């Protein structure tokens, strides 16, 4: 069991460093370390992140948007090891600025061959990058209804 954990951990570590650079750009580095490498099965896992040009910092010093991107990089580095057939993300793009929305959606796009994504969002930039869009409304107060599917990105649907 501890050997299996060891190999999984090493693979996630490797993925995380790569994905972090993809999301934060060149010059950024990040790593996941085991606080106590001798005790694979119990050791807590630490995450250190260093956005480009900044000093490495602990997670609490990262900004709201930086934290979200770091968590997404971690989540996807686990998906690379054990792909999940589907992934539902509920407004995780809310803290991101436009440039990071684009990077986030590029990452989603690169995974969308092996994983199906369903994203709940209010952000028009995220909507534009999707394949399909469903709208939910409440024509009768308190009762939800599906509005329609728009393949051609006709954004008036949700205006």
């Amino acid at each position, binding site marked *: 069991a501890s050997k299996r954990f060891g190999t999984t951990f090493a693979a996630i570590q490797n993925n995380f460093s790569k994905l972090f650079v993809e999301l934060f750009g060149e010059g950024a580095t990040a790593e996941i370390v085991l606080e106590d490498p001798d005790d694979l099965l119990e050791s807590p896992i630490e995450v250190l992140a260093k956005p480009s040009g900044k000093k490495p910092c602990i997670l609490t010093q990262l900004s709201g948007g930086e934290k979200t991107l770091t968590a997404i990089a971690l989540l996807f580095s686990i998906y690379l090891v054990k792909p999940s057939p589907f992934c539902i993300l509920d407004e995780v793009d809310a803290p991101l600025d436009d440039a990071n929305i684009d990077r986030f959606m590029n990452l989603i796009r690169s995974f969308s061959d092996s994983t199906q994504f369903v994203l709940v969002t209010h952000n028009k930039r995220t909507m534009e990058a999707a394949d399909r869009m469903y709208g939910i409304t409440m024509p009768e*107060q*308190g009762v939800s209804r*599906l509005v329609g599917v728009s393949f051609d990105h006709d954004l008036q*649907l949700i205006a």
Partner: protein
Amino acid sequence: MYLSRLEIHGFKSFADRMVVDFSPGVTVIVGPNGCGKSNIVDAVRWVIGEQRARILRSEKMDNIIFNGTSNRRSLGMSEVLLTIENTRGVLPTEYEEVTIGRRLFRSGESEYLLNGIQCRLKDITDLFMDTGMGAGAYSVIELKMIEDILSDSTQDRRHMFEEAA
């Protein structure tokens, strides 16, 4: 393997039956505040076996049954069906298409369904074992959880890694 259809009836704000057809790729769900988007996400969590009411933003599990509006009476049952295309045979069954279902009655009785036939919760969790899809897996993420993934309690993080091993 992907989700191909979700049917919701009587779950939270979905008083009338609603059917959503999904395709592979990236789908977005949009709409005004309070219209029922996160309720759809909760419906998926519930049908794949979530037992903790707190995760479904409810105090007791029967709060997930439509409890009425000023013009409508509350319903007596909540039902969610999820159809999964098992094209790559990831799920340990010979069926091409698998539909799982879950019902909850006001009386407290609950039913689980597999391709229309009543089964136990264990049959559904066994089906998802090792596919990354079960209730404990990390396939449904909301913003508040992003804080948790990076939170100080490294216990949460360890759980994620162990799930993958």
